């Protein structure tokens, strides 16, 4: 990679170790910010759930519990203890990997969440992958043809796709793809999860596509402008003047230069994908984290909600920070050493 780095960003020799140290310090700084943010997030989550109306004991006790039974349930669930003690208990558990137990059926939240993440994480990754696979070629084509009606049509179409709600896309895929072809199930996920990977993947394709189309529409605009930037660069013009085919210039030079910022943008997309997954999990009746959260909120399973929200927040924050850091480390303008 270093041999093809543009000459104008080459660093003076002898500053390599200094640069490594600076990158390391920046990463450390990022990590510290991450930890503080996570602690703040945990407090916000805990605080908001503590003031959420609705008594968890009343939900479990049902329509016929006596006041004494409710009191006993509250004590059993630790709801009679002070807020700070409950928070410290919970955080202490989370730090040692114990996410608590569900108030409804006494199942460990970690086990439940692990099961659901086996659906939601592959769904999210598949959606991200599909959105990149759609956005990169479409974006590049839109950039190359930006002056023509074809290019403008692509840009307009991507605007339109970004405006269509995910559940409408999901329904359309169900009615126009799943039903006529019978290649994909309309709903559900194998009960034994990934025992048969083909089956599991088959259940995820349409929901992932529904999320991916919306996300891709946003990415297309990014890829398009990044590619236009590259096309305007002098070294592209130089390459073209030297008789290199445009395709080769774009693939060898342009893609790499556009790909790095793309990593950072993908980090930002993760939260959007997660939002989309809540919707498509509901629509396609997938047993993922989204459905779990909705059910838990309805049942006021507070321990389960706060642990799940915290793990999701941590996942999004960590992957965003990692992707941003990765793009910075990979960027030859920073990484280059003597």
């Amino acid at each position, binding site marked *: 990679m270093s041999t093809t780095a543009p000459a104008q960003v080459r660093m003076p020799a002898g500053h390599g170790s200094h640069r490594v140290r600076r990158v390391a310090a920046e990463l450390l700084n990022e990590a510290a910010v991450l930890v503080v943010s996570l602690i703040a997030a945990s407090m916000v989550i805990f605080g908001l759930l503590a003031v959420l109306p609705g008594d968890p004991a009343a939900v479990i006790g049902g329509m016929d519990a006596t006041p004494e039974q409710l009191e006993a349930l509250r004590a059993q669930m630790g709801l009679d203890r002070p807020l700070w003690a409950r928070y410290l208990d919970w955080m202490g558990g989370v730090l040692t990997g114990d996410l608590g137990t569900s108030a409804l059926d006494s199942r460990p939240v970690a086990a439940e969440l692990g099961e659901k993440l086996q659906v939601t994480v592959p769904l999210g990754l598949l959606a991200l992958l599909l959105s990149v696979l759609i956005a990169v070629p479409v974006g590049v084509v839109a950039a190359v043809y930006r002056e023509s009606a074809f290019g403008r049509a692509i840009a307009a179409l991507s605007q339109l796709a970004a405006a269509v709600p995910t559940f409408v896309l999901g329904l359309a895929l169900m009615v126009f793809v799943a039903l006529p072809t019978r290649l994909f199930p309309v709903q559900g996920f194998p009960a034994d999860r990934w025992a048969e990977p083909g089956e599991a993947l088959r259940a995820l394709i349409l929901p992932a596509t529904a999320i991916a189309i919306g996300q891709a529409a946003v990415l297309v605009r990014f890829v398009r402008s990044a590619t236009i930037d590259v096309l305007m660069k002098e070294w592209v013009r130089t390459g073209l003047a030297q008789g290199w085919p445009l395709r080769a210039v774009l693939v060898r030079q342009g893609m790499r230069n556009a790909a790095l910022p793309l990593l950072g943008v993908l980090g930002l997309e993760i939260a959007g994908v997660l939002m989309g997954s809540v919707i498509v999990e509901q629509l396609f009746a997938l047993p993922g984290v989204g459905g779990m959260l909705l*059910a838990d909120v309805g049942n006021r399973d507070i321990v389960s909600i706060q642990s799940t929200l915290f793990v999701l927040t941590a996942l999004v924050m960590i992957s965003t920070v990692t992707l941003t850091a990765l793009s910075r480390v990979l960027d030859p303008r920073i990484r280059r050493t003597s």
Partner: protein
Amino acid sequence: MRRTFASTALILGGVLLAGCASSPATGTDAPESSESAIIDIRVGLEPTSLDVTTTSGAGLVQVMRGNVYEGLVGLSEDLEILPALASDWEISDDGLTYTFTVREGVTFHDGTPMTVADVVASLQASSAEGSTNPDAKRMGSVASVEATDDTTVVVTLSERDINFLESLTTSAGYVVPVESSVDLASATNGTGPYTLGQWNRGATLSLEPFADYWGEAPLNGGVVYHYIADETTAASALRSGEVDILAGVSAETAELLGGDAEFQVVEGDSTSWMTLGFNNAVAPFDDQRVRQALRQAIDKQELIEVIGGQALEVGTITVPTDAWHVDATGSAPYDQAAAKELLAEAGQEDLSLTLTVANTYDTIITEFIAAELAEVGVDVTIDTVEFATWLEDVYTNKDYELTMVLHVDPATITYYGNPAYYWNYDNAEAQTLVTEARQSATPEERDEKLRAVAELVAADSASDWLYSPQTVIVAGEDVAGFPVDRISNNFRVSGITAAE
């Protein structure tokens, strides 16, 4: 050159996408053949836990009752009491002593034989003081439960209870092992024709035939309940053959699927009432004229049309299939002029009320009510809350004015005899009638008393009863043997068959 690049990119993208889309699908469509078909049923509500001894909720009852867990007696679809774990029983003349002959050769799902000790312990636990059994309130009249020999269990009541046998068909009467290594919250250990297969939380729950079942083996190879919240998805799943039966669908879905010869649409009776609850203890609802006025201001026929038509106008808290049914639709006929007069008489011409309602119901219903009441000068604010909040504010703390809820318990009529229930309806006559009904010597006498309760609460406008929804079931044309009535709390699946 540009064109070449563009087409390459497009083709490449297309190939990648097509590869993603089609490769996993190959060779996975061959249906597994088995001797008897697995029946796939879409139901709306998922249980929160599987422990029938502590958990309430229609989602759990629908799956477990008579399928996984059984009591000494069972309930047919026509509400007839059938022998189950007791092969026979006798009731003393004073109606206080029930002597059951317990069936021999019954095995729990974990393989241990069922004994009279299990029966006694189960009934003692559910009828004990402070029992957390969701149906414990039905066992209030039980004084003692004892085994007199290896096959006889005697239950003594402190007072007559004409509904006692029916109570034994609910969770309060289920027989579970005295000692069991099975965690009942996530597994099951009953005596029914099915045992739990797999609970894929958030998606499906499967039941498998129990090989050592004492009675007739199920006619199918098992049942999978699919928890699909979205109606459109459910309809698509039926069309694609992923489910065989949709148990309970909206009017729109039924109409959509009904036009297709591939499906059968069957209407069944339910025992449920969409109830407009008045907080009888607070002004102005402590005035019968105000309650009556609100009832007369709402056009029930039009409301039923608005929600799609699959419902009955009732006028009180009974349905035609109840043995104690009375037609009270005339107790508060739609008449907005009369409603205005009543409000004027009560001095309540400028009423502002809050309707607190759980977000589980279609907003079109509450909006219709608010619009109708606005026409008689009552300003209604709709306060939509989550069910958990509703339970706390309205149900437990009784902090509300107007509320709306679907009651599904056939015994709801008897709650008008309980002044502590969330309606705050305190009427000595109703309380006496309900007690007398429970202590009746014959079903006829009970029915007569309950009819009197139904008429009383209608005349008193204790609540308003907006409609009684009917259950609509849609099934594939080759599916047979499924129950249609009261399936939300009595849904036996062992007789269902389908062509593979």
